[in-house]
């Protein structure tokens, strides 16, 4: 099978930058792995400087290796994340696999020193064995998830079809990854987010929310209902405070004042609920429940 370079293939500059990120991740994991082993060789704990020096000094190279190994993961992980996404396929999830590589490597250290080759012939070290099992589980979980995600196109462009059996459809930079938002996500927010992704050159997109149109219709209905209630209440209550006081002091007396204050408090609560919903602090169902409760009280008062 022959295949030529096409417009859907990544730019060489992106590949070089992604390779720096991925290669750096491999280097940092190796440093952390070797640094950890050197410390476990001497019993698993060490300290340098101050009053701890006489207890157990660290082996040469352990401190810089662990420092560079751990903090370098953030730097190279960021590079791999930004440029790996532009390559698509399995490389877009490079940091995910780096996570697995790190935890499996360190988990192996725990198992090796805790079970197979304990230092000073101490026998099984249960604390390290437990850490090893946890680390291996933490490493395997995303690895299996990632392989399931990219299993049918291990080194290609993800699940979408395309030329050569591993590419995405032709026509420039299409999305390599399609994310599914929550059913009640705001379609406008999704659209804005997609525009931001596209302008940043990220080969991913968020699908339209499943219940987008229905959700919009529902919100319009709620707004309409609330508008009617507020308008009706406002029509019954004079805007002028003096007139309102006069009304309160009239037929209803103190009971009327309490009635108006209570109604106003309920209307305020409705407005506050709508505000919370608009700011995304209330879900659709929570809002509906709260609104129904307020409406019941309002109807009882009228």
């Amino acid at each position: 099978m022959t295949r030529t370079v096409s417009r859907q293939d990544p730019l060489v500059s992106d590949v070089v930058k992604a390779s720096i990120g991925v290669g750096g991740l491999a280097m940092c994991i190796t440093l952390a792995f070797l640094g950890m082993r050197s410390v476990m060789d001497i019993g698993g704990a060490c300290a340098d400087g101050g009053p701890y020096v006489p207890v157990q000094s660290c082996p040469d190279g352990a401190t810089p290796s662990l420092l560079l190994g751990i903090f370098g993961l953030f730097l190279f992980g960021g590079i791999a994340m930004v440029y790996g996404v532009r390559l698509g396929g399995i490389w877009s999830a490079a940091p995910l696999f780096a996570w697995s590589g790190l935890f499996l490597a360190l988990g192996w250290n725990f198992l090796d020193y805790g079970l197979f080759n304990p230092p000073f012939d101490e026998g099984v070290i249960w604390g390290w064995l437990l850490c090893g099992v946890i680390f291996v589980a933490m490493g395997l979980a995303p690895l299996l998830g990632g392989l399931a995600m990219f299993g049918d196109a291990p080194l290609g462009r993800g699940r979408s079809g395309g030329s050569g059996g591993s590419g995405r459809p032709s026509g420039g930079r299409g999305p390599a990854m399609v994310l599914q938002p929550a059913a009640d996500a705001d379609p406008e927010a999704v659209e804005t987010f997609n525009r931001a992704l596209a302008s940043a050159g990220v080969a991913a997109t968020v699908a339209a929310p499943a219940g987008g149109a229905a959700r919009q219709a529902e919100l319009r209905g709620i707004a309409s209902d609330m508008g009617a209630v507020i308008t009706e209440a406002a029509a019954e209550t004079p805007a002028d405070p003096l007139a309102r006081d006069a009304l309160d002091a009239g037929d209803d007396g103190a009971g009327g004042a309490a009635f108006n204050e209570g109604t106003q408090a309920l209307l305020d609560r409705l407005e506050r609920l709508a505000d919370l919903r608009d700011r995304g602090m209330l879900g659709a169902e929570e809002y509906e429940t709260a609104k129904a409760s307020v409406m019941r009280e309002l109807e009882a008062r009228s």
Partner: protein
Amino acid sequence: MRVSRVGVNVIMVVAIVVGIAAGIRLYAFFAGG
């Protein structure tokens, strides 16, 4: 200039191998070996 899919995969695998080798050499350097 663009790189084919096969080219991308080869470059990235080489980068991983080089990264591991660099980690081993760097550790040896830190350890004074």
